[in-house]
């Protein structure tokens, strides 16, 4: 402010010369010189840093620095090392059958952890993070399986998908009984009533009894005479508490009218065999996994 030095009256110490609110002044408290030199040293250090490490953006990228350090490269190296550390497990999983992996606690633990990560990356988009599914996307936690719930069956479904175009995929689908003119609207309503009566939902009993012969004629081929489904054909059990598309009269009628045919990709076209094994073990562990293929029981009788 003013050209000449101002001394504080009380302490006799020079002030900075700035005045606020008419009379507020600040004593000049100089920093030590070494502090200044440390500051200069930091500036010199910064120049050195710019030379050695990546620092400045350029139009096409950035200055790489003499050391060529890159966090991406470090991560890649660490990931490779982590992968290498997993090798003994991966080799074990590749060489063992699914049931043998399950009997080996070390391999099983590794497969579950790996499967959980793979599930999050690949499956959660449709089936949900907790595999809880949604309308049209099966809940994988429950014990109701469209295409079978033992380890091998889950492995097959993951590998080849459902109506995925893969030659080995599960390929059957629910016909379009209404759109293709097989059933008239009134018949669809009757058979929907009958289907809902199989799982003891409230229905129009007269309509349901009219629907029974239609069901026997049109539906029982796939869904079974008692509507218990068939995992060979992906025909859902219609007598249980689990409904992929919902159990309202309208929804069931729509399923009959337009058919249903959800699609799941063939993951063997995208993931390596070890990953698919880990995924199968993980999904099987979610609570509904069935222990052995129940070959003695009829195909349409769920456990």
């Amino acid at each position, binding site marked *: 402010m003013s050209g000449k030095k101002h001394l504080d009256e009380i302490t006799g110490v020079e002030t900075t010369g700035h005045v606020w609110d008419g009379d507020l002044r600040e*004593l*000049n408290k100089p920093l030590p010189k070494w502090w200044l030199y440390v500051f200069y040293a930091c500036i010199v250090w910064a120049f050195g840093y710019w030379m050695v490490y990546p620092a400045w953006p350029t139009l096409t990228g950035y200055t790489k620095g003499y050391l060529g350090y890159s966090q991406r490269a470090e991560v890649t190296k660490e990931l490779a090392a982590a992968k290498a550390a997993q090798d003994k497990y991966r080799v074990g999983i590749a060489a063992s059958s699914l049931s043998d992996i399950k009997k080996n606690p070390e391999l099983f633990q590794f497969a579950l952890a790996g499967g959980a990560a793979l599930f999050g990356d690949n499956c959660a988009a449709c089936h949900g993070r907790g595999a809880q599914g949604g309308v049209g996307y099966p809940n994988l936690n*429950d014990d109701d399986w469209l295409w079978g719930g033992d380890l091998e069956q889950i492995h097959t479904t993951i590998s080849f998908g459902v109506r995925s175009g893969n030659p080995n995929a599960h390929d059957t689908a629910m016909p379009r009984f209404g759109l293709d003119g097989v059933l008239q609207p009134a018949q669809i309503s009757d058979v929907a009533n009958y289907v809902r009566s199989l799982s003891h939902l409230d229905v129009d009993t007269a309509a349901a009894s009219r629907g029974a012969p239609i069901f026997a004629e049109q539906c029982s081929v796939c869904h079974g005479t008692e509507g218990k489904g068939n995992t060979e054909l992906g025909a859902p059990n219609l007598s*249980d508490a*689990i409904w992929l598309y919902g159990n309202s009269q309208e929804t069931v009628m729509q399923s009959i009218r337009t058919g249903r045919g959800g699609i799941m990709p063939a993951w063997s076209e995208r993931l390596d065999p070890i990953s698919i094994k880990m995924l199968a073990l993980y999904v099987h562990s979610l609570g509904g996994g069935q222990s052995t293929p129940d070959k003695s029981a009829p195909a349409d009788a769920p456990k």
Partner: protein
Amino acid sequence: MNAMDSGNKFIIEPADAVGRSAAPSKRGGSGSGYTARSKIYPRLARGSFRSIKWAVMAITLGIYYLLPWIRWERGPGLPSQAILLDFANQRLLFGPIEIWAQEFYYVTGLLVLGALSLFLVTSIAGRMWCGYACPQTVWTDLMIAVERFWQGDRNAHMRLDAQGWTFERIWKKTATHISWLIIAIATGGALVFYFRDAPTLASEFATGTAPTIAYVFLGIFTLTTYLLGGIAREQVCIYMCPWPRIQGAMLDRDSLFISYRDLRGEPRGPHKRGESWEGRGDCVDCTACVAVCPMGIDIRNGSQLECIQCALCIDACNDIMGKVGRPSELITYTTVSNLENATTGPRDGLRIIRPRTILYSALIAVVGALMLWSLTHRTDFDFNVLPDRNPLFVTLSDGGIRNGYTLKISNKLETSRHFTIRLAGLQNARLQYVGFETSDPVIDVGPAEVRALRLYVSLSPSARAQLKSDLTPVIITVVEDATGHESARSTTFKGPGQ
């Protein structure tokens, strides 16, 4: 800033606010933006406080250097060092107590206790920590003692520095710095011994096979000890340390601090033997108090930010007062209250019990009791239940309900142990453990291992009737087979509600 108002004279102010007669430094008034450091040549004080400081130095350095070498047998394959901060294995070992990473709150508690104790001591006795126990003070004191050993006390040292680069000056300086470096290496070395078995690490150092990180930290602490204790000294307290600023909040009119009794001392002036003491103060202006000060200040200017309250000026002044035949304690520990009451003599009143000290003591008691309680009630295994959140529950094909839980059992012992799990609160529940065939498996948990298990609990449609709401409280208990000790956790079984 009315620092000259006598009532506020002893409130801590930076030195410049009350002037600085002993070292009319370039701080302030020089016109330059930065101030050069004026070298301090502290004279060796002799007296009771100096003796206390030597004793504290011996005790603190003794603890610091020797602690890692104390052994504690824990059994085969386990570290036998009493105090070991075993970061490599994520555990802290304090004698019989082993603290895991997830129990770090014990360390937090210790730090809280340390901070509160510091608050209490500061509110009662001022900068005791700064004056006696702070590592910066202790090591600076040690470095100054070494410097004195090679270069002589204040006057000899000043004479040495006044001469040019003579052979005498060069070898004395060299000897000083080499001694400092040896102390610094020993300091850095002692610190790394806390983090790795001391005898092992010592032999690794001897053969040059220690881990790189040990050398790095040895280097870092050698450098900081040499720089902060040997070179920077009082600059650390004045410019780097936040504590002098913070502790103003704990001090009040009844806190002890070191002060010159200006009522008794002024007017000061030289005094010849035999002259009358009438009409003058006891201060003979010998500046002995200034000469011994490691911070380079004049205590007679009042309380100052720079003053670490090391009490060496008390020793120096008492020595002089004895020689001139006046009562001691012209410079003394006192309080602002006492100064205002103008009481004299060595036995001023000290009001220790004040709301502030009661609060700090109460907090120390509460935190200490909590720590003690949790330490005596900690188990040698830990058990946690994480109910699934996504999905909250699963409807089964027969209309039953299933919940999933992740159970974590941590075995804090260094031997394998077996556990079984019980569930209470639900009738006719079906339990399935992923990876186990039976519903009542024995869970092996390895030495110092955390084992995670997946548990599915299902209720059949008929058993569902017992669910009265969407949340049913259940208790899951883990029992150690060998001892029968158990740990219970309450959680919930979720359903769609009625």
